[in-house]
């Protein structure tokens, strides 16, 4: 069976109770299935990378460890970053910035897109 390109799109803020944690769990399970897994942080989903004390469980720490799992690429929508007054340097992970055109290309290249 061919490896599928699966993209997880994280677009929601971390302040939604268990939902962010559950999305991370789905992503990590996806990563162990030996597929081509990547993650895109966009809109308020970018805040999931920053941590802070707004949620019971720090998922930011888990996201900074993505490279230790079998996640191939981590992308950030640079327009979403700019709209929130953030820069790539403020993020605790190595993420590739994408323009909106780049986001469209990324989405079009996937076999499956999973939303949070």
């Amino acid at each position, binding site marked *: 069976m061919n490896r599928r390109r699966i993209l997880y799109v994280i677009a929601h803020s971390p302040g939604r109770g*268990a939902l962010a944690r*559950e999305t991370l*769990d789905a992503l990590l*399970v*996806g990563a162990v*299935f030996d597929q081509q897994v990547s993650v895109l942080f966009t809109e308020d989903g970018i805040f999931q990378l920053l941590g802070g004390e707004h949620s019971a469980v720090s998922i930011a720490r888990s996201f900074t460890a993505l490279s230790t799992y079998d996640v191939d690429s981590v992308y950030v929508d640079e327009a979403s970053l700019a709209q929130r007054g953030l820069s790539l340097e403020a993020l605790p992970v190595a993420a590739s910035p994408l323009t909106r055109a780049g986001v469209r290309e990324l989405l079009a290249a996937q076999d*499956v897109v999973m*939303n949070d």
Partner: protein
Amino acid sequence: MNIAIVVHGSPSSSESTFAALRFARAALAGGHHIHRVFFYHDAVHVANAYAVAPQDETDITRLWAEFASANQIELAVCVAAALRRGVLNADEAERYSRAGANLLPPFQITGLGQLVEAAITADRLVTFAA
């Protein structure tokens, strides 16, 4: 086409369990196959047999169960999301010493691996977010 459906929203605060059922019916009517319906996040509440719909409202739990039984569709409920929200089958109720089981058949408890398997196997994966 072999279609997998993922549902995220609570039946009491989201349209997603209703929209997903309409989509599933239309898919079958269009000659497609439904690989599996996977309930995640707050959508696991739809499998709760103890929920009582008011008489003048749609009983979405019963509609899903009837649809699945009539068409042999797999209704998969994520175990971690279900435990967190108090939706348990008999095995889980015993394992965690809870007073009763409330998962309505043919909904069945499964793991996240079934979501990934669907993503890998189905021709299309269609998500009904909250």
